């Protein structure tokens, strides 16, 4: 099981939050060494699914397996990197102090701090206090934290929101490079045009998957050219059947 081809396997996952069923029983698989885009409008259950994958979400039923182990297992804690939707770093520390702390918690070597600063393009901000950075820069500090050590799975909840297009392009090439090294990435976004960067797409709406396909398969299946149009076509089709 430990060497299974899937980095993540979700079976019949049901999550209820505050009396509302957010995920009514979803299943999906994420292959190792791939970049999977989890796309869907805000509030469709993306974050809840990602929280279940990293093991911080109370689930009502179903199974979530990560790297062959139950999600949240102790052995996974140094193998899975997680970026929450809101930047989760200490605003009153400098960028370097923040990263140094998380590196120490992970047991990652101190030189990792410089590597991840380069990877997210923040080497010139190492001594800046995080709270005085822009929103996009703070998001990159948060992302840098997840790159510390040698994570085998990266769960990134909207890591590119609010970033300038050049930076977004750079980050997507970093994601591709990481996948090339065998890292599995799940990247959520509500911006449909990021879909082209992913090998695999999970389109989500109201807690259910509309599609689980590659961008080209999606185009073929719907006859549309961009993912936003394909998303709409799938919604229309589903409503016509309903």
């Amino acid at each position: 099981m430990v060497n299974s081809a899937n980095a993540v396997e979700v079976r019949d996952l049901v999550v209820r939050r505050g009396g509302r069923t957010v995920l009514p029983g979803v299943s999906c698989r994420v292959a190792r060494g791939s970049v999977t885009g989890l796309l869907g409008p805000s509030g469709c259950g993306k974050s809840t699914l990602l929280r279940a994958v990293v093991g911080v979400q109370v689930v009502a039923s179903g199974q979530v397996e990560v790297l062959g182990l139950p999600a949240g297992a102790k052995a996974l804690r140094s193998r899975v990197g997680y970026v929450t939707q809101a930047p989760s770093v200490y605003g009153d520390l400098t960028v370097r102090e923040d990263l140094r702390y998380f590196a120490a918690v992970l047991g990652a070597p101190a030189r990792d701090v410089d590597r991840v600063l380069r990877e997210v393009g923040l080497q010139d901000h190492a001594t800046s206090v995080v709270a005085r950075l822009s929103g996009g820069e703070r998001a990159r500090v948060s992302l840098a934290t997840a790159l510390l050590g040698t994570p085998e799975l990266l769960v990134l909840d909207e890591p590119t929101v609010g970033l300038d297009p050049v930076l977004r392009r750079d980050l997507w090439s970093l994601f591709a490079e990481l996948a090339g090294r065998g890292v599995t990435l799940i990247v959520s976004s509500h911006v449909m045009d990021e879909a082209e960067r992913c090998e695999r797409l999970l389109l989500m709406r109201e807690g259910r998957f509309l599609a689980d396909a590659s961008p080209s398969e999606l185009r073929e299946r719907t006859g549309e050219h961009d993912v936003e149009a394909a998303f709409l076509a799938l919604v229309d089709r589903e409503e016509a059947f309903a």
Partner: protein
Amino acid sequence: MSTRPALATTARVLAQLRRDPRTLALLLLVPCVLLSLLAWIYDGQPQLFDRVGASLLGIFPFVSMFLVTSVATLRERTSGTLERLLTMPLSKLDLILGYALAFGLVAVVQAVLATALALGPLGLDVLGPWWALLIVAVLDALLGVALGLLVSAFAASEFQAVQFLPAVVLPQVLLCGLLAPRESMAAALEALSDVLPLTYAVDAMQRVTASGDVTGGLVRDLAVVAACVVAALGLGAATLRRRTS
């Protein structure tokens, strides 16, 4: 647990405090200012200051450390860092101990300052040795740290967190024997005061004031306070939840 993540957490919390000099100054100076105020109020009645001053030397640091630590894990939760940390190789006890150590260091400095001020310039007279007074003051401040961290896990908002001061601390101040001797209280109140940790903290202070020897009663009081510190930290770690809804 291992020591590395806990010590890293201590260093991080201290770095955060260093960036917030106003909080640090308030923590270290407010108990001193309050003790000075008390000495002034009892100017001309030194025997009254000797009786009440030692007890309040135990209570002021307890209250200020309680208040600052009661928002500590709440801050971690609202900043999202708690959720991230709980997906990392850090045990819940590592986190709580890291905080306890950082604020424990502040508590020691605070207790040293307050004790030195009370025994020196303010002229507090106690029969017991100065170091006994210091040990009790440090332990009382640590009790504030531990209880603050414990209630912090239960607070969902800043409004709730600050209300734990009147809810958790003031009843202990009322019942600890400072305002009225515990023996004179109704049996139910005395029994209640028997199970509140601050009772033993203040009782220890009164023993140092009243006796030149380190008595068995003092050692017992200190053991009870120390046990409460350990229990509160353990409970504080146990009540953190990795999975939330």
